[in-house]
């Protein structure tokens, strides 16, 4: 049983977790870097501890600081949010060794599932379809190259320890393979401290579809349908929706059921996601498992009525799931837009700075998750997510229109601050998106058509 939860994260997800805890009557401990001393979660949590300097590595990503903060405040559980230490099996083990309940899967399960190569192997065992590729990481360039030639191009070289869209390269020609392989290895070693990579067929055009799962500690599991995350730029998602559009209900159900089967076979517990790529012919292939709550979880909450973060806390407290699969019903369509402090006209470069104006939308079926506040500075040290705007409507078209209305209500401005809002509006208006027939190429296709509003840029406007 959990009574006091340390939230080992920042920004909107820290606030999201704090709210779930408060609704469940759990006490909360916020931890923060010196850059976040006046953040919303610090004022809302029951207690707050400064754990380090701004760089994430020395604060939110520092296991020793988090364990010490838990010890001095008497917290008995740790919610890792997403990013930082959320998928670090060593951190899970350190929590356990210090008598803290980690809100997520067991460390040995996380170790297997967060490694893309071993996750592929275990999912294949469970009968999930995989793209042609290596089941294990090749031991030499020659072996990898030979494999790539057998698979056929294009192939993608991916870091086994990779995540968040980093540490991967698409190779379209056999001649380019050795260089790309070596570069990805070196990048993986530098970024993740693990140079292992694997090779698989690169599917295009493709859609990115994922399945939301909850599994308890008693061997029960339920899936909450699918989300489409195809609107992404260099693997960074911009718009997500539930359920995935333009794919037959039969294919979606099959995908969701197989994901659940695989997760249960791996011994997964907590909230997680299985990611798939889906071809034009509705063929689907398992990609990877996320062992944590995801940024885009609200769209699933909106169509199922289930508070996934509360359920994470219940599962970690040892409670059995409160549903069987047949109890889960999806209603309507939910869309999420990520409002990032990034300049779409300059390769989405982050634009940290002071927020003079910061007004977010409201109105019917419109939900906003944000930790930013007017007058605050966007710190340059962290990811540039300012707010998630989520809408629900009975139909996809109504949801799309509601989102367009919600984005219009946003007023975000400050010296040098740009946001993704104008670009999100262009995507929403694109016919391919409107008809739900887009692929992961959509962002590049929209960018290729040039900015919708040409002319001199005005500083500090959106």
């Amino acid at each position, binding site marked *: 049983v959990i009574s006091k939860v340390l939230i080992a994260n920042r920004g909107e997800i820290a606030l999201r977790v704090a709210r779930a805890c408060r609704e469940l009557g759990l006490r909360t401990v916020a931890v923060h870097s*010196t850059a976040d001393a006046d953040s919303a979660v610090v004022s809302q949590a029951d*207690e*707050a*501890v*400064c*754990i*380090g*300097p701004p760089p994430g*590595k*020395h*604060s939110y990503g*520092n*296991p*020793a*600081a988090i*364990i*010490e*903060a838990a010890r*001095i*405040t*008497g917290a008995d559980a740790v919610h890792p949010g997403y990013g930082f230490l959320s998928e*670090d099996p*060593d*951190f899970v083990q*350190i929590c356990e060794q210090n008598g803290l309940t980690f809100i997520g899967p067991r460390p040995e399960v996380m170790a297997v599932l967060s490694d893309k190569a071993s996750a592929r192997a275990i999912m294949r065992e469970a009968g999930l379809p995989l793209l042609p590729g290596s089941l294990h*990481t090749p*031991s*030499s360039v020659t072996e990898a190259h030979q494999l790539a030639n057998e698979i056929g191009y294009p192939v993608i070289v991916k870091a086994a320890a990779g995540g968040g869209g980093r540490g991967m390269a698409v190779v379209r020609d056999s001649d380019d393979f050795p260089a790309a392989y070596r570069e990805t290895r070196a990048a993986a*070693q530098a970024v993740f*401290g693990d*140079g*292992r990579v694997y090779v698989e067929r690169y599917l295009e055009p493709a859609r990115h579809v994922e399945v939301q799962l909850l599994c308890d500690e008693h061997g029960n599991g339920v899936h909450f349908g699918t989300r489409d995350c195809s609107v992404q730029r260099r693997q960074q998602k911009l718009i997500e929706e539930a359920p995935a559009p333009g794919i037959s209900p039969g294919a979606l159900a099959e995908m969701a059921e197989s994901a659940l089967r695989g997760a249960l076979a791996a011994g997964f517990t907590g909230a997680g996601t299985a990611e798939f790529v889906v071809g034009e012919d509705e063929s689907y292939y398992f990609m990877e498992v996320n062992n944590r709550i995801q940024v885009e979880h609200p769209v699933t909450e909106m169509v199922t009525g289930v508070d996934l973060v509360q359920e994470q806390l219940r599962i970690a407290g040892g409670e059995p799931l409160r549903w069987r699969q047949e109890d889960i019903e999806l209603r309507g369509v939910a869309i999420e837009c990520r409002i990032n402090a990034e300049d779409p006209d300059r390769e989405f470069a982050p634009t940290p700075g002071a927020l003079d104006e910061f007004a977010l939308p409201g109105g019917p079926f419109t939900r906003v998750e944000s930790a930013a506040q007017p007058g605050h500075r966007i710190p340059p040290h962290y990811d540039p997510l300012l707010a998630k705007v989520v809408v629900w409507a009975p139909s996809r078209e109504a949801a799309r229109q509601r989102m367009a209305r919600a984005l219009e209500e946003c007023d975000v401005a400050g010296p040098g601050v740009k946001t993704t809002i104008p670009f999100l509006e262009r995507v929403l208006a694109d016919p391919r998106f409107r008809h739900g027939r887009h692929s992961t190429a959509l962002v590049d296709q929209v960018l290729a058509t040039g900015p919708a509003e040409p002319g001199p840029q005005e500083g500090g406007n959106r």
Partner: protein
Amino acid sequence: VSREEAEPRVTELGEHAARLANDLPGDLRRLRLKADGEATELEVEWHGPPAQGAAHAAAPPPVVVQPTLTHPAVAAADPATVPAAEAQQPPADVGPEPEPSTEDDRTMVEAPMVGTFYRAPEPGADPFVEVGDEVEPDTVIGIVEAMKLMNPVTAEARGRIVEILAANAEPVEYGQPLVALSTSDIAAGA
């Protein structure tokens, strides 16, 4: 694990060990690298800073630094400075508001990490520093215990201790002022 995969890891571990050796407060006694299958281990033993108390018969136990726990200041002092468990007290209020200094010559020595502050090398021993003491940049003013490792905190400036701001065995946040130094009345003597 193939040779090709193991090599960069061992290299990285070696670099990490070299960094540690530089950062540690005393002379290195022994360092062991181990790469076994998927696991890599780095074991370090070292002599603490010049002894400040009674000699101790038992050899200090090795400190195992797991690769996952790399960045925080894992450098611990000589185990002679480890306070006994009895020094543990229930946590007081977390995050007391530091009093802003209005005097220009007042310098705060801040906690370098979250943990428990100790003013003395061991229970019952004299505190490292008292108000009025003159300190050098490398003078130890206290210890912050984090993850069972004792991290000596040095003054980082020349000066005279004018105030002790954190109590013995008090939980401290990162950046919390521990003692205040006056740097002016010492500067002339430099």
